[in-house]
């Protein structure tokens, strides 16, 4: 193409306008077409996390149609979604032996973005039955490790109480939690995210405690 036209103002303006319109159309179209599928993936994931915090739905990562599997398991175990204090959600999970676990959703702030998770409690409302965590954009290999089992598994069996007082579960320096019923090991190199998990648990669970104890 002639260089004089190509570098002229009119051509530059038209080119910029055209590319913006084309790109906007492509992006809007992809977003619209794919939205229903994306939303159902997100819903399945939320439900899967609720189930996983109570140690259920272990087959979800190997099963072929995950959406259907999770839907079925969720309806089987989570029969009751009570409204907690101040209208906060609380999930009641009834296991096969009839025992009930109470699942509290958690929301907090990590290093780069939001973090969240679910904490399942035994029906003494003191002992942690299980926990899962996830994050939007923590550093891969460091803070992002909170979503992996080596971090969340040690929460099982920890106590939120010490000598009758609510102390929550602390996330301490890696290797220092051995034998402490109120602490788990943090992630080396992911200190800020580890602390954020600790804060998140304390701040979210404390709202539920008077409510649960009263029930």
């Amino acid at each position: 193409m002639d260089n004089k036209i190509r570098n002229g103002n009119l051509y530059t303006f038209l080119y910029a306008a055209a590319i913006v319109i084309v790109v906007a159309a492509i992006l809007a179209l992809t977003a619209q077409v794919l939205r229903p599928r994306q939303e159902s993936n997100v819903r399945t994931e939320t439900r899967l996390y609720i189930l996983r915090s109570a140690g259920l739905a272990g087959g979800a990562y190997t099963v072929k149609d995950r959406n259907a599997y999770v839907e079925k398991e969720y309806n089987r175990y989570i029969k009751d979604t009570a409204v907690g204090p101040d209208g906060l959600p609380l999930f009641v999970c009834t296991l096969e032996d009839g025992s009930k676990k109470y699942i509290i959703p958690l929301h907090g702030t990590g290093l780069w973005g939001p973090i969240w998770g679910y904490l399942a409690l035994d029906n003494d409302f003191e002992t942690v039955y299980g926990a899962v965590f996830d994050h939007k954009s923590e550093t891969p290999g460091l803070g992002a490790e909170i979503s992996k089992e080596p971090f969340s598994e040690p929460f099982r069996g920890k106590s939120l109480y010490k000598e009758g007082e609510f102390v929550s579960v602390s996330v301490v320096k890696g290797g220092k939690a051995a034998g402490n019923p109120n602490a788990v090991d943090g992630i080396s190199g992911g200190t800020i995210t580890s602390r954020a998990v600790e804060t998140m648990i304390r701040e979210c669970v404390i709202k539920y405690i008077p409510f649960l104890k009263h029930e």
Partner: protein
Amino acid sequence: MNKRIFLDPLFKNNPVSVLVLGICSALAVTVKMEPALVMALSVTLVTGFSGLIMSLFRNTVPNRIRIIVQLIVVATLVIVVDQILKAFAYDVSKQLSVFVGLIITNCIIMGRIEAFALGNKPIPAFMDGIGNGLGYGMILVIVSFFRELLGSGTLLGYRIVPQSWYMGNGGFYENNGLMILPPMALIIVGLIIWIFNAGKEWSK
């Protein structure tokens, strides 16, 4: 010709060790091998296809806004791929979500478009992009191999150093905490550059 375009960026003109591009993401994603592999694959695809697309348009893009046009093409490509993954491969997309920003701003992509794709035909531009992505990925994998092995005692999440070796369990071994921290990535990249250059001297 195409073979040289493809192979040069792996060793002779490696984007990280020779051109020193893309160092920033080498810091962020090399603590573990798994994110390093995801990142390497994504960048390879994006450098390849953005090179191809920009090369197709190379004779129409107005000079004064060419950088903006490149950025739009790269960003659109990454976002569309991310959207498709979100719908059809949700797990992969969750892994990738953190990297989307890092992929778009990776200097290798813009660098190769500016230096190569805008002046060459589509097929060589595509090969050049893939080659550079692989050259970059190779360094990422080497760095993450050492950082994960020495920093966490695992590779791709599998335990390599036996638990019984650790001091905590009565053994003699301790993970090197420095390996997990960002400075170690730069030190390892530095060592790789050194080895590459020393190799070039010897082969003369």
